[in-house]
């Protein structure tokens, strides 16, 4: 009984990490851009959901269509306006996206204030081994799996994915073959943003929407993505599994903050051993 509950919580913790890191991982893996505004993409996704529902839009439509679309468009705009000027200057892209992150927090504070807004989590709850868990947790696991599978499928089996992978492997060669790599970058960034928007919207019924909600996710997302390394999907899965298990175990025996600390400690030791991340050492031919 306890085992079932524990493994459900474990899978849930891993799914949360996957969901909140995947958008960042896509952008980092494909473009070598560490997007410091990732947390704010999640925040905007959450606000989009809450405002859409308040405007009378169906909650599922808002979650799976409106939020990813809105954040995707914002991501595309950011890439066009700011990031495209900074390719190859990794530090400057971080600093610029950090500025964007601050500006977005400021903008959200200005418009919405610090008051927390929320929607009630849809779906009911079920009982597992004497513990009550909500069906919404199951939904989060499903969304995480579907997002991963979808990203993998697009990259592996579509023409768009092929072009993206080509650009990632050798941008100059792709360009020489007549590809518009700048368009690929713009669309990749938009796609990563859309995934973050989806994640933010899915999280919003649990956490509510506040301007600074992004900072609650970014530490774990950064650690997961950087330790995962360049291969977005495999890296996210492996690092999320590792860190999800670790932090869940430590949280179980101690406190959530101890879980945080253990996560950071593990990441620093891992990076000491594998400076270019897990997928820089293992699974190098994966996606």
């Amino acid at each position, binding site marked *: 009984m306890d085992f079932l509950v524990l493994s459900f919580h474990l899978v849930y913790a891993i799914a949360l990490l996957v969901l909140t890191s995947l958008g960042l991982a896509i952008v980092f893996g494909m473009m070598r851009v560490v997007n410091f505004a990732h947390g704010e993409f999640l925040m905007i996704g959450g606000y989009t959901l809450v405002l859409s529902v308040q405007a009378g839009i169906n909650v599922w439509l808002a979650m799976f269509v409106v939020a990813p679309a809105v954040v995707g468009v914002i991501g595309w705009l950011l890439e066009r306006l700011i990031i495209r000027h900074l390719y190859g200057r990794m*530090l400057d892209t*971080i*600093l*610029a996206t*950090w500025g964007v992150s601050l*500006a977005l927090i*400021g903008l959200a504070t200005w418009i919405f204030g610090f008051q927390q807004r929320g929607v009630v989590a849809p779906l009911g709850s079920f009982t597992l081994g004497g513990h009550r868990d909500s069906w919404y947790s199951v939904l989060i696991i499903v969304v995480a799996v579907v997002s991963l599978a979808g990203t993998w499928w697009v990259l592996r089996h579509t023409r768009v994915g092929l072009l993206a992978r080509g650009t990632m492997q050798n941008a100059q060669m792709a360009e020489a073959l007549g590809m518009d790599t700048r368009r690929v970058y713009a669309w990749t960034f938009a796609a990563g943003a859309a995934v973050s928007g989806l994640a933010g919207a899915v999280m919003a019924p649990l956490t509510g929407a506040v301007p600074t909600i992004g*900072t609650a996710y970014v530490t774990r997302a950064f650690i997961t993505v950087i330790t995962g390394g360049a291969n977005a999907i495999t890296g996210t899965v492996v690092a999320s599994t590792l860190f999800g298990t670790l932090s869940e175990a430590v949280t179980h025996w101690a406190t959530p903050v101890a879980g945080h600390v253990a996560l950071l400690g593990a*990441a*620093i030791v891992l990076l000491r051993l594998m400076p270019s991340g897990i997928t820089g050492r293992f699974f190098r031919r994966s996606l």
Partner: protein
Amino acid sequence: MRALQRFGPALWTAGVLALFGLAWVVELSTLVSLNVYVIMATLALSMALVWGVAGIFSFGQSAFFGLGAYAYAVLALGGQGGGLALFVAVALPSAAAALMGYFLFYGRISDVYLGVITLTASLILYHLVNTVSGADFRLLGVALGGYNGIPGVPPIVLAGGQELDFTGLYLLSVAVLVAVYVGLRLLVRTRFGQAVAAVREHELRAELLGYDARAYKLGVFIIGAAIAGLAGALHATWGGFVGPDVFGIGFAAQTIIWAQVGGVSLLAGPVVGCVLVQWLTTWLGENRLADTNLVLGVIFVLCVLLLPAGLLPWLRQRSRRLAGGAE
């Protein structure tokens, strides 16, 4: 321009004397608000050292400031308000930097990852400090206060048992700032400083010439943390308060904006950036024109895009060009 160069040392001396002299000229309330600029300028100098001289893109420099502030607060409230508290406020961040730097530099974690890891460490400290509220969390009998922070941090106690007043603290802060600046100017001229610059410019070449890049980076990282810690202690006694926000992402971002706006290729760059940004933040806060984060974020982005070298290096280049001096 040439005239400016000839009178350079005289101007510097006059500036420093004026900074000290303000203590007897302006009103006490003005002096107290000036003091925070001086303290933050010291933190900015540690950014100038770590980013500018060594090329280590630490995003968590503010965390060492926070560690120093907490160390001073705990010891001073625990009855050790003199030299010991200041010493620990320098020693603790240095030790933390040594431990963390060992993993980062000896793991050869490259620049950008290093930034993310240092920032993450700072944010985790933030979460950690936020939770240590309640009577169970005491160090030397001092409650750590969690998200409420530690209020009532006492002033520095001098050797004779006398407490340092606001004027005294201002003079001490200016003395620290000047000493750190002069010290860093001298440091970059030593063999150590030049080796550090060589590592920054071309790490592989420096290593092939026999310099252990990892050790040099670690050394600078520790010195930077010590300076930041001292500034943190001064800030804790200045405001009589330390809170977990010193480890937050907002404060970390501020120190980086100082460096970016002022420009790290000159030691004085982050100091200028610090004074400008602090002044702007205060002004915006008083006038409530727009959200501070929004304005700072926009300035940050614009600086990265349009003025990547920073304000001070850009001005210097402009004035050189105007003077017709080719260097």
